[in-house]
């Protein structure tokens, strides 16, 4: 039988607030173990959480970036479960009254058609401590690092709108782009600032029923998510084909073996409204303030790039795909560089070199000013394209201006007609065969002669000018 998958994702995103969620400790989980702790985030008896306004702002901006409706009142619940990474025995999360509901992000499916993936809700919760297991060298022990305890998370629960592993991956990318744009979180699956769990069920194609789902955890890259879901769909299909029932449970993705394996169930206790953090009322005025802090998001920005700069669809969506890239592009454009030239240089030259040099926009040594001045020289025919590419490479390893490099390495192109005429004359003298071919109308000979002249100039001649001089000579 042919099956269709019904997939929903639960994504935890660590907000980049300065402090933890309920105390003033720094939100820096990577510091030396247990450096950032106090009675509140050590969850000591008697300590009482105090909700951070900054976390509320970041969470709200995240939810707005995902087109959610912010609820007028949200509140925390105590979710009881017992595990050593949660030594207080309950996690503050939002079960009864989440921060936001009913959002969406847009993706393009396998056929390139736009599709909206619904977001059921966005809520806030505190992260748990981190366990480190020392299994070698002595009696095995488990250590608890509380630096992460009480750091702020938002959990984004999608609707079961996703149908394929591809869509799941596209959804994560789109959601990540939106949140990174909003600037409220880093969203790195590799670094654990974004964690994705998937709920997967299957049904006969064409059916509308929702079947028993299986939860998959432990996927630490977008590709893992795709692979794990693909595996799980196939596994469930086999179950159904052989008449084996699907049971509600949680499975872990094993990235080495590329399989999902069942995980032992954990005890889930009661859930009760937390009495110590009063319900949070969101006023329209405050919400409007948050809305103004939301930057122009990718889809709108891409449309503007098309209108304002005449970019085509692909160029516009590429230049707006990341906030830093889009800002870089616009800055270059404002420095009198034609927009499509800027797109071309950024996408085909700069970005591959950034990858080679292990740089990203925030730490990029090629400032928009340096790139603009380089492209400017090209535009003014002071250098040719080949030289420009070489200068760009050199710019990564020096503080010099593009002008200084051009001068230092003699990249300035020869546009002096007199000098070029004598250079061309000597090239013509050395290549009588090509000259006669050209006279006979063989266009290939023109290219050959330009190439020879360029070589003679050691690449510094202006090829356009050479062509003009040659054309004049053989008119």
């Amino acid at each position, binding site marked *: 039988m042919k099956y269709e998958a019904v997939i929903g994702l639960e994504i935890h995103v660590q907000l980049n607030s300065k402090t933890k969620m309920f105390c003033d400790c720094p939100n820096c989980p990577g510091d030396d173990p247990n450096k950032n702790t106090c009675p509140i985030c050590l969850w000591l008896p008697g300590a009482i959480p105090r909700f951070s306004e900054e976390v509320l702002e970041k969470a709200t901006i995240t939810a707005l970036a995902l087109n959610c409706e912010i609820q007028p009142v949200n509140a925390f619940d105590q979710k009881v479960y017992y595990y050593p990474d949660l*030594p207080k*025995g309950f996690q503050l999360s939002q079960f009864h009254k989440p921060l936001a509901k009913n959002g969406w992000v847009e993706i393009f499916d396998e056929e390139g058609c736009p599709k909206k993936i619904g977001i059921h809700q966005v809520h806030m919760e505190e992260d748990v401590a981190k366990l480190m297991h020392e299994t070698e060298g002595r009696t095995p022990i488990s250590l608890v690092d509380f630096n992460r305890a009480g750091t702020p998370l938002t959990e984004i629960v999608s609707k079961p709108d996703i149908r394929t592993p591809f869509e799941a991956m596209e959804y994560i990318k789109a959601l990540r782009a939106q949140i990174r744009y909003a600037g409220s979180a880093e969203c790195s699956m590799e670094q654990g600032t974004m964690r994705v769990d998937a709920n997967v069920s299957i049904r006969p194609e064409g059916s509308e029923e929702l079947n028993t789902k299986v939860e998959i955890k432990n996927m630490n890259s977008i590709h893992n998510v795709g692979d794990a879901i693909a595996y799980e769909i196939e596994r469930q299909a086999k179950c159904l084909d052989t008449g084996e029932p699907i049971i509600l449970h949680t499975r872990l993705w094993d990235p080495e073996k590329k399989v999902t394996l069942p995980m032992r169930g954990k005890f889930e*206790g*009661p*859930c009760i409204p937390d*009495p110590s953090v009063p319900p949070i009322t969101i006023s329209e005025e405050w919400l409007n303030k948050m809305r103004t802090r939301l930057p122009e998001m990718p889809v709108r920005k891409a449309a503007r790039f098309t209108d304002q700069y005449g970019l085509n669809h692909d160029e516009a969506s590429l230049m707006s795909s990341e906030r830093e890239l889009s800002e870089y592009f616009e800055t270059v454009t404002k420095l009198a560089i034609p927009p499509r030239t800027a797109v071309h240089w950024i996408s085909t030259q700069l970005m591959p070199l950034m990858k080679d040099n292990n740089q990203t926009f925030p730490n990029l040594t090629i400032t928009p000013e340096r790139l603009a001045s380089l492209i400017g020289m090209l535009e003014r025919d002071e250098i040719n394209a080949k030289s420009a590419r070489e200068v760009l490479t050199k710019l990564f390893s020096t503080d010099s201006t593009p002008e200084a490099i051009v001068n230092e390495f003699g990249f300035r192109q020869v546009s002096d007609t007199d000098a070029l005429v004598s250079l061309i004359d000597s090239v013509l003298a050395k290549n009588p065969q090509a000259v006669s071919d050209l006279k006979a109308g063989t266009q290939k000979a023109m290219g050959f002669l330009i190439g020879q002249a360029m070589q003679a100039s050691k690449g510094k001649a202006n090829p356009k000018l050479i062509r003009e001089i040659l054309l004049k000579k053989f008119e």
Partner: protein
Amino acid sequence: MEPYELTIHELHEKLRSGELTSLDITASVFERIEAVEEEVHSYITLLKEDALESARKSDIEIRRGNMSQLTGIPIAVKDLLCTRGIKTTCGSHILEDFIPPYDATVIKKLKNAGAIFTGKTNMDEFAMGSSTETSYFGITKNPWDPERIPGGSSGGSAAAVAADECIASLGTDTGGSIRQPAALCGVVGLKPTYGRVSRFGLVAFASSLDQIGPMTKDVQDCAIMMNVIAGYDSNESTSVPAEVPDYESFLKRGIEGWTVGIPKEYFIEGMDPEVSSAVEKVIAFIEALGAKSCHISLPHTRYGVAAYYIVAPAEASSNLARYDGVKYGFRAAGSSNLMDMYKKSRSQGFGAEVKRRIMIGTYALSSGYYDAYYKKASQIRSLMKKDFDDAFKVCDVILTPTTPTPAFKIGEKTDDPLQMYLSDVFTLPANLAGIPGISIPCGYSEGGLPIGLQLLAGYFKEEKLLQAASAFEKQINLEKRRPLLHGI
């Protein structure tokens, strides 16, 4: 009179005049403790050396003229309040060795005011109980009759004040745990409005009900203590940034022209006749104070016990989830794996009453029951709040008995939790509604046991409560009796 017999305001005058030093007072209190503690057992931890050292420092400050009303005054603290570097057991085996690295906000405030800490007082385990019999650290006796309970859960704090083992103390009140033992031990006990006193550092039992309050020898001392501990704490989200008046300045104003509400639901059948008659006597004083009494109804009172025994255990079930045998001391031996360790440690580390309430709470919150129990109980709370709101539209304060009976015998109700729960029937509505309440002594039974009178006021109206309590205290003019202890 020995210094330990005096009140805060009397001792303050003697400290100010130089007649006594803090060291004199503190040493006197510890002499008293040494004499009667074996008989009463008010304390879990005594801090004699620290206290004497602090007293010497206080005397230096007093000589320098740095003096607040609590400077140099020995005060006892319920063992549910976190004290930096000092064991805070909550009366439980599972926290036997817990030494907090921080002070509760009220402790900081008392320290800043120059108070001397005598020790940590005994209590029902995690404040769950009405008799101090559920403590892991032994039973506290009622100083008026060592065969009887002192009430609870702040039984140690009440007994310590009644037996002169401290000058005043702090208790906590989740369903009556300050007022009920105050009544049974013949002292003054005030439960402030929820949010009036910071709960930061109070080990949570039921966070939406818990409040810290003073237990003292008279109403004036109660006002003095409130002046120090009340107020907003930016560390604690449920503390309220409302202005704190000088409570002491209200005490002599009288209640002329006031209306005192008498709720019919608090004068029930089965009430001890001696309690009824003591309270009736006080009601007869109302006119003499220039006030009038008025019969009112608080119709949802009858649901109070039921609602309380859903809300409090529900909150406790998650608040106590953190005691898993990993930290704070007790861990059961011989566990084969993590879950086994949790189960064994919690089974052995908690007493029967705590386990009973965790089970009630977990059941009430379990999936499918939330709406039927917890949500319903929350709705009853709203109705009870409305009862009080309506009542305070027609009266200034409400007058009731604090407890249905005087102190009962040790062991009398331990096998019947429901009877035990009913001993808080008059006190727990104030916690469910969040309003303040005070208990003051209003008489003695024929057997010589103290009887308490409860006054209730509207939100953040502690000054009215103290004003009325002071007026009644003066009018009742109870003969000064002291419990007959074998000690000194």
